[in-house]
């Protein structure tokens, strides 16, 4: 490996870490909450550690810990986890063409690391293309995994000394992170419509206590954004052809 190539890899590793850093910090309260909740709900230290280590999903961890503590049936626990986690199907679909032909070690590891946060950093058209961008994603996603683990461990260690954190409003940090990611990305009308529809529907479905509402609201919102972009593209095409015919008429008149 030449010096330049090595340098480029180092740059990408660094960029991955730096881009993910604000998200790594923003999940501190959420991670500590998940770790401490497991201990407070009578999980052993090993069990509490395995949650971030292998399940690695904040919302699933939080809900499932409460369900397991309440001795819910296994089927209920697994089904609930599946519903909460089902939004990841959309991420897999969106990245399918970019990742499906990679070797298993890349597919598997990036698949494991494919959280909301990593997906939020995957919006670029060129993301995951070429080894440098894969290294970038691996370091961004990997640093988020390590951070999640550390915050959980702090929560586990402090667990029995901490008060019940569930009603302290720690979820605000998650909300504001996503606000900071979404708002600057609204650069055209289709995206604005997507976000508005998603927001309104998510609140309605949540109030109706619809478990699948999250995914349904997303899909409807995506469709609205898609249709808007199609209508815009059509209008654009009509306008362009009008201009062309006008140009033609003008040149004909002139001649």
């Amino acid at each position, binding site marked *: 490996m030449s010096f330049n190539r090595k340098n480029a890899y180092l740059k990408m590793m660094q960029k991955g870490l730096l881009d993910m850093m*604000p*998200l790594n*910090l*923003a999940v501190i309260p959420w991670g500590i909450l998940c770790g401490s909740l497991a201990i407070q709900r009578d999980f052993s230290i090993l*069990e509490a550690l*395995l949650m971030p280590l*292998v*399940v*690695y999903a904040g919302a*699933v961890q939080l809900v499932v810990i409460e369900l*397991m503590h309440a001795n819910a049936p*296994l089927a209920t*626990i*697994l089904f609930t*986890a599946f519903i909460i*986690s089902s*939004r*990841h*199907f959309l*991420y*897999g*679909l*969106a*990245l*399918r*063409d970019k990742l499906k032909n990679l070797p298993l070690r890349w*597919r598997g590891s*990036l698949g*494991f690391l*494919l959280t*909301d946060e990593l*997906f939020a950093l995957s919006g670029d058209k060129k993301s995951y293309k070429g080894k440098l961008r894969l290294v970038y994603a691996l370091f961004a996603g990997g640093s988020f995994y390590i951070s999640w683990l550390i915050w959980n461990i702090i929560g586990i260690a402090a667990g029995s000394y901490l008060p019940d954190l569930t009603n302290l*409003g720690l979820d*605000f*940090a*998650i*909300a504001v992170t996503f*606000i*900071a*990611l*979404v*708002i*600057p*990305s609204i650069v055209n009308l*289709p995206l604005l419509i997507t*976000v508005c529809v*998603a*927001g309104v*529907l*998510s*609140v309605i479905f*949540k*109030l109706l206590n619809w478990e699948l509402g*999250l995914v349904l609201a*997303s899909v409807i*919102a*995506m*469709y609205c954004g*898609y249709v808007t972009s*199609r209508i815009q593209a059509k209008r654009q095409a009509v306008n362009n052809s009008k201009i062309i015919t006008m140009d033609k008429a003008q040149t004909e008149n002139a001649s």
Partner: protein
Amino acid sequence: MILITILLLACITFLTRYLFLHPKLPLRIGPKMESFLSFSAPAVLTVIWVPIIFIQDNQLDISFTNPYLIAATVAVIIAKKTNSIYFTLAASVSVFILLRVFL
């Protein structure tokens, strides 16, 4: 038993993330589908954050006594103006904490 449950949970979260990355899956994504899927990030992230802000104790709360709503409004304005995640986080979390203390 808890250990087995945790391992099954791990299988579920991994399955939902990995399934569509698997090359053997008989599924082709055309240009229309691709354009549709390009809206997934703003859509999914929004359906996660909006209910956290507007729903308190299972009820819609649109009032000036909802610290989530006020702090989120600050966050939206700052995110739009600065495009900085750090700045947005710092400012709105401070506002949120102050509101929690004083409201």
